[in-house]
Structures are given as C-alpha cells and as structure tokens.
C-alpha cells in the first residue's frame, strides 16, 4: 500500500513539526494535520465507522485547543533548551519499550491469528440472524462486546468528572 506509507511519513513529519515549533497555535494546527491524516488512513483501510469518529473528534479537539490557546501568549518557552542527560535517558527507555512491545505484539498476533479469524468469520456469517443489525460494527460493539462499550462510556464519564473537578465554574468557597 504505497498511499498508506505516504500518509504515515506525512504523519511523522507533522508530529515533528508539532513538537519542535515555537508558536503554540501553529503546533495545534500541525497536531490537527496528524489527526486528519489518521482519518484518511482509516478510509484507506476501509473502516468508515472509525473515520467518522476520528474526523469529528479531531475537529472538536482542535477547536478546544484553539479556544484555550487564544487566551494565552502563544509562545512555548521551553523550545530551544538543550537536551540534558535525563532527557536522553528517557528517550532510550521509551524507545526500547516501544520496540519490545511491537516485537512481542507481532509475534503473538502471528501465533494466535487463526482463532481471531474464526471469531471474525462467525460475526460476518451469523451477525445478521443473531442480532438483527445490518451494520456488523454496531452488532459487535453493542451486542457481542457491549461490556467494552460500557467501559468506554465509563472512561468518558471519568474524564468529564476530572475536568469539571479541576476547572469548576464556581470558585472554591473558603
């Protein structure tokens, strides 16, 4: 898939720009470029459900960031600082963990892939008669794997509670 590789290279470039640029507003725009490229990648991989969610959430995230950054000075004051020993140590640790995780994940995926394909074949073949939903993604996330959806809803609920607790509208009454 050459188009997917081009998208991934563009994502890496936009991510480097988002980290290294000095203006925070330009950094948020580069971050939005990464997110929209993820959405195009989902369309290339034929996952329209995920593409719709990714586009909408990316628009909302960029709007949130811009609405917050317009009230600040726009300038990231830590840019240009030389890397210290602790930074390089952190880079190496995270790089080693990411590579090890990738290696183990790909190995287990190759070992256990036959069982996963059997479950997918069952969803495709019997999904309509067992759940009545034409959209197999809805059948999986709201019938076969509905407990996972409950966990996702709980994660969103907890995030909202955290934001409301940190930034509540009424100030603390002393």
């Amino acid at each position, binding site marked *: 898939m050459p188009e997917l590789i081009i998208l991934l290279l563009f994502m890496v470039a936009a991510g480097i720009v988002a980290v290294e640029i000095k203006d925070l507003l330009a950094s948020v725009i580069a971050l939005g470029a990464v997110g929209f490229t993820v959405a195009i990648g989902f369309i290339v991989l034929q996952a*329209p*459900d995920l593409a*719709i*969610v990714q586009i*909408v*959430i990316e*628009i*909302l995230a960029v*709007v*949130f960031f811009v*609405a*917050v950054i317009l*009230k600040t000075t726009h300038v990231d004051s830590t840019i240009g600082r030389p890397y210290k020993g602790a930074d390089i140590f952190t880079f190496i640790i995270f790089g080693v963990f990411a590579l090890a995780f990738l290696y183990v994940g790909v190995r287990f995926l190759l070992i256990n892939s036959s069982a996963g394909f059997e479950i997918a074949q069952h969803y495709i073949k019997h999904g*309509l008669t*067992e*759940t*009545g*939903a*034409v*959209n197999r*993604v*809805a*059948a999986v*996330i*709201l*019938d076969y794997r*509905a*407990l996972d*959806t*409950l966990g*996702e*809803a709980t994660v*969103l*609920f907890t*995030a*909202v509670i955290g*934001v*409301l607790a940190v*930034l*509540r*509208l*009424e*100030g*603390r009454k002393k």
Partner: protein
Amino acid sequence: MSGMTPIVKVIARTVAGFIFVYGCYIILYGHLSPGGGFAGGAIVAAGLILSRLAFGTSAAQERSTSISSSIFESSGGILFLLVAVLGLVIFAQGAGFFFKNLFPEFGKGGTLVSAGSIPLSNIAIGIKVGAAMLSIFVVLASTKYIFKE
C-alpha cells in the same frame, strides 16, 4: 465570551441546524449505516459548540448549560445501564444475561425498527457523548471564572 463577526454569525445560523439534524440521523441509523452513538453524539455537540462560539454566551447561560449538560450526561449513562439490566431481568430465570439483546428478531433486517436493543443503546450513548463534549467545552472555554479569585 463575546460573539464573532456578522459573517460568521450568518454562516453559523445557516449551518448549525443541518449539523444537528445530521448528528441525529447518524445516531438513529447507527445499526444500518456507518456511524453510531459515539460519532453522532460528537456531531450534535459540534453543532451546539459552533452556535455557541459564533453568537457568544453570557455567564448565566454558561452556568445553566453546565448544569443541564451534567443532567443529560448522567441520564444517558443510566439509560444505557437500564437497557443492559433489562436484558438480565426481562427473560426467564437463567435465560438472560447482562447486555442480552432484547428481541433481535423483531422487525425486518435493514429497516429502521429492527436489531432489538441496539438502537436504544445508540440513543443513550449519543445523549451521553454529546452532553460530555459540550460540558468539557463550556468548562474549558469559560476560564474567566477560574482566574476570578
């Protein structure tokens, strides 16, 4: 938070209603076409956020929106759990379980009224996600209260 220029206001007045209706369509047809509760709720919240950004809001409106979105989010979560518990309760002893689909054979496959409890779950998740996005936006965009003390 004050409003924006008349150009933005005219465009937002035209577009916001269509975005809202499109979000409701994505929620209601989640079991037939790509989309679902999460995407549709986020689209509804995007329409509301667009109108709020274009026209501006007063402090009293922000406070009432915060309260009402909290109520909507909690009721959406409770509705989703109610659908789950109905699958446990409504069937005979031993036949039901948590998140069991209610009457999946009801209605013809491919029509709007089908798929048992999946549309109900979609509606509940749509209410919940839309209210959550709106409340996060209201809290993050009205920072003047935080620095007031």
